């Protein structure tokens, strides 16, 4: 065990994967000798050479196209998109190519070795283009897996699972938490399951569901709600696609109430999908409407970031409203 922040845990996961398998490659913009703008790939080029960890030209569609080809060839590419806000030039390669490679070839070819890492989310005064949470765009694409970690331990275990998973996986990293705190992280290789949510706190009155950086916000809100005598069950979804309906439904059968929160805007956000599925599953058990606490339907603002974000106060209010409905 070592104390690591999330960046160190991610760097350690990449190091672990590259040490174990010479076919694992890390590349992207500024990923090489500099180690990435956030330093997630620090020392990897020095350790594994320029052929396996390298800078690419500034062309996201090229990075992912290149990565698709490498994965089809049998390599295990871990491509970095510098900010999730800049993933859209690669949208075609991800949505039409990565996601459909296996299906369209009848399983003759696949890009299962592909992992795409991208820092996402607000809270760093990043404005419109260094703050977005684009998971819902990709959640509409069968064939992809989408994973978001909440802390250093989760980050290493989920990233290693993503790298080894035989399906193309998007790994969105909550950059606000990169250096926010440290936690105990095993030094060896370990993998946390994809497609499985985790109940991080048991409770009986209301279920609060989120992922990534929002888990910290939920914990703050729950601490306050519990002081009011509300027993909260907290779930980290961890994998957005394919998502763990069973764990969420089982929790809502017990509590009868659900609050879902994410940073991305409300309309078309993944909370809508969760709400629709859970009301189908748990209709007769629900004691109150499923609540969504999300970013507003605006581009991501700068100065009024705090007002925009679904912070712990808004989540707390939603918990109260759900219980008092």
């Amino acid at each position, binding site marked *: 065990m070592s104390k690591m922040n999330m960046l160190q845990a991610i760097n350690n996961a990449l190091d672990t994967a590259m040490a174990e398998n010479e076919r694992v490659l890390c590349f992207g913009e500024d990923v090489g000798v500099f180690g990435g703008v956030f330093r997630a790939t620090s020392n990897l080029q020095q350790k594994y050479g320029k052929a396996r960890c390298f800078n*690419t030209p500034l062309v996201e569609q090229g990075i992912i196209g290149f990565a698709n080809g490498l994965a089809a060839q049998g390599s295990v590419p871990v491509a970095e998109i510098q900010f999730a806000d800049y993933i859209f030039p690669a949208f075609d390669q991800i949505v039409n190519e990565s996601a459909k490679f296996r299906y369209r070839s009848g399983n003759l070819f696949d890009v299962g070795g592909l992992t795409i890492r991208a820092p996402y989310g607000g809270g760093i005064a990043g404005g419109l283009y260094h703050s977005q949470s684009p998971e819902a765009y990709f959640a509409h694409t069968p064939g992809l897996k989408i994973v978001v970690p909440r802390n250093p331990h989760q980050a290493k275990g989920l990233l290693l699972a993503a790298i080894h998973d035989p399906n193309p996986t998007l790994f969105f990293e909550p950059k606000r938490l990169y250096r926010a705190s440290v936690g105990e992280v095993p030094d060896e290789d370990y993998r946390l399951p994809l497609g499985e949510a985790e109940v991080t706190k048991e409770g009986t009155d209301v279920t609060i569901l989120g992922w990534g950086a929002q888990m910290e916000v939920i914990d703050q809100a729950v601490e306050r709600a519990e002081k009011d005598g509300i027993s909260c069950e907290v779930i980290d979804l961890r994998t957005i696609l*394919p998502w763990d309906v069973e764990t969420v439904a089982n929790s809502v059968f017990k509590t009868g109430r659900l609050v879902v929160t994410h940073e991305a805007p409300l309309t078309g956000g993944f909370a809508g999908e969760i709400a629709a599925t859970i009301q189908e599953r748990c209709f007769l058990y629900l004691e109150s409407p499923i609540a969504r606490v999300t970013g507003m339907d605006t581009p991501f603002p700068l100065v009024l970031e705090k007002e925009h974000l679904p912070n712990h106060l808004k989540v707390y209010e939603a918990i109260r409203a759900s219980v008092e409905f």
Partner: protein
Amino acid sequence: MTTTKSKVVYSPVFTDGAEFRIPTFKLLKQDGKLYKSAKAPDLDKDKALRIYRAMVTTRILDERMLAAQRQGRLSFYMQCTGEEAAVIGSAAALDDGDMIMAQYREQGALAYRGFTIDEFMNQLFGNEMDYGKGRQMPVHYGSKKLNYMTISSPLATQIPQAAGYAYGQKLRGEGLCTITYFGEGAASEGDFHAALNMAAVHRVPVIFLCRNNGYAISTPAAEQFAADGVAPRAYGYKMDVIRVDGNDILAMYQATQEARKLAVEHNRPVLIEAMSYRLAAHSSSDDPSGYRSKDEEAVWREKDPILRMRLWLESKKWWSEDDEKQLQENMRREVLETMKRAQKRPPPPLESLVSDVYDEVPPALAEQFDKLKAHIRRNPDEYPKSAEHAKGGA
């Protein structure tokens, strides 16, 4: 910091690149004879005949399958007609272990590698023996054993993938390369530029083969780019480039052979611009009479690459009138008989609707599938293709 060592001038001097005139490489005249100073590449009789048979196979397959589409037996088709030399001449210059990542009009390369008429037909009819499990429109072939990547409809997406695939080959040290085919229209897509730049920067053993066939559906090349074709773009990426008469089988073969050496032995990516003409429509859904003249087509019909090769083979005494007649008859018969068989084969099983989305069917999709089967069981007459398959399960 700049990487360009540039001469300095003290008055504003613009340059438009006009000094770069890219010549066209030709060896074979339309009468099957070599140009005066041209020398035939090292191509033995067996290989030459393998190439020729693949060209004729492609032509006949295309003719018959377009006719089948017109008769309503097939939903869609795309012909390679006029471009057989560009595609097969280049594919023949490769090692059969090299990866081919094509656009959609390169069935000739597959025919050359040994894809059988039966395999073509199974894909065209999307039956249970189609490797693609009936999921894609006709002509979206793929073959793992022949190193031919399954076709994807979106244009140019295969180009940066080819760069990545070839980079992986380079790291493996297999002495193999990747060739990727695309049209001059696809070369306008961002993926083309992304791919060439990345390949040049990372010294990737990849051959970019642009089939400049004059048209992107209805859009003529003159409305696609202002420059002298696609070839000059290679300079901007510092890449070796050659322009070839795409209807000249010998020139295509030799140019690709040399390109392969640059790619595999020197890790230098190469751009080949094959100048040709799409004699057929873009697809069975297209009608060229709306955008080009019969006279224009007639000029190119005179430059038929298959006839040109045949005349060369005959001049070498490697091919005769009888050989031609026999090949034509055999191929036509095989295509017709194979088509009838393929058409009768059942469709892929219902389960293939949900398999291969992921390596395993996730729970939510399994649930959707159970619901679908139950629905089909309630309405079996409405789903004749799958009612039988829907019997099992929840």
